[in-house]
């Protein structure tokens, strides 16, 4: 899967949970889910569950803890897809 497809898909998944909509206008790998998008921790769990469904992967606790930015999420998704 191409990087851009993963980023587009992530943007779509996270959008319903975003408090700070300006953060979406400049959505890139540096975008921080909590600082830039103001997603709360409970909704970050929803994002992860949606990512699991969308990409048919399982995200473990360690991966979850390292998922601060969109780039982190993209890397985790790529890694899981590669090992699937």
């Amino acid at each position, binding site marked *: 899967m191409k990087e851009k497809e993963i980023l587009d898909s992530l943007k779509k998944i996270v959008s319903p949970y975003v408090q700070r909509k300006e953060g979406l206008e400049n959505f890139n790998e540096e975008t921080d889910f909590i600082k830039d998008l103001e997603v709360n921790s409970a909704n970050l769990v*929803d994002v992860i569950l949606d990512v699991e469904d969308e990409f048919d992967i399982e995200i473990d606790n360690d991966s979850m*803890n390292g998922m601060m930015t969109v780039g982190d999420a993209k890397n985790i998704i790529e890694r899981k897809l590669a090992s699937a």
Partner: protein
Amino acid sequence: MNYNNILQKLPYTKPFLFVDELLKVDEKSAEGLYTFPVDSFFYKGHFKNNPVTPGVILTECMAQIGVVSLGIFLLEDQVNESQEIELAMSSSEVDFYLPVFPGETVKVVSEKLFFRFNKLKCEVRMYDKTEKLICRGKIAGMIKSKLAGDNSRKN
């Protein structure tokens, strides 16, 4: 089996404890009872001269039995017993069908939707004595034990 160990760990007290008894708690579900005392503080103001249990209190009762009690059970399963819990409600979406008047006993029945990354989300229903549905909805909270790092797991 009694559930005193769970009741003792509920981080509430009067006038904001809305669990009298737990009937059943297991990996997937929880059931419990609460009777709203006629002299509960909120009846004085909700409504003027017409006491009805506020929906927000019914929601709280559903959360305490259906989410927090279940969450304590799920955490105890994994970690040592003496730990306290950290807790916050994260969302609730509830539909109401019947009013609850002072002195009524309600039964709360909850089914776990998921418990992952410290978030417990449940489908919760409340019934009156004749098993009529009072309200139902989805309630979620973040719950973890105070000392342990990460207690989440799949389902």
